């Protein structure tokens, strides 16, 4: 597990690229082996508001890549990336806007 991110601000728009280390395993449903393990909620917060709110499933590729942008961002501020998976595991990380 681990979150890698690049977040760049141009004017007041922040473009965020995320790479989350996660198996996103579908288990037997998808024709694989073992138990399913996939992220089912991923949020990004900025200054107390949610700027990205995604409900993924095991149909999202292994080690999910996510790109999005939001308005009203300021260089030097931070965003908080947080995910939870179907087994109850999760991770939270702050990323500085460059």
């Amino acid at each position, binding site marked *: 597990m681990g979150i890698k991110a690049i977040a760049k601000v141009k004017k007041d728009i922040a473009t965020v690229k995320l790479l989350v280390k996660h198996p996103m395993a*579908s288990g037997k449903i998808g024709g694989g082996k073992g138990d399913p393990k996939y992220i089912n909620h991923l949020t990004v917060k900025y200054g107390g508001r949610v700027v990205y709110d995604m409900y993924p499933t095991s149909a*999202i590729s292994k080690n999910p890549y996510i790109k999005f942008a939001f308005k009203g961002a300021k260089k030097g501020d931070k965003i908080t990336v947080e995910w939870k998976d179907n087994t109850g595991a999760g991770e939270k990380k702050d990323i500085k806007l460059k």
Partner: protein
Amino acid sequence: MKRRKFIGLGFATMAVTALQSVSSASIFSEHPKAFMAKTGDEALKDAYGTTDVMKDDKAMLKLPDIAENGGAVPVTVSTSLNNAKNMSLIIDGNPRPLAASWELTEGTIPKFSTRIKMRKTGNVRLIVEDANGKLHEAVKQVKVTVGGCGG
């Protein structure tokens, strides 16, 4: 002593609340059944209560015509609507067609990219719910050379 215990309990409660805050109420956290649906239309019914969609240019879907690796197909979903509520991505050829949903929040530009798994050749659909609860749809067929649902 008792007071300390009480404060400790307070912190424990706060920690639990913080953990729960990520799953704030939304159409998708309230309808988890949709993600288990076996057909795209069943997922639509579970999430939105209808399968009535408008095929117009409000929902936009960018995908390759041919995917050599069904395990990682790049996709970009977007909408031209300013105040849409949410978006859902449906992969009709997958065992669980509802692949992902997004709640749209203020200030966020409704254009997201990610990579998806596709088991076989078929339609990918983007559903956008507008402010009035109407559904807009974009459809794109993708040919899959090597399926990628295993694992």
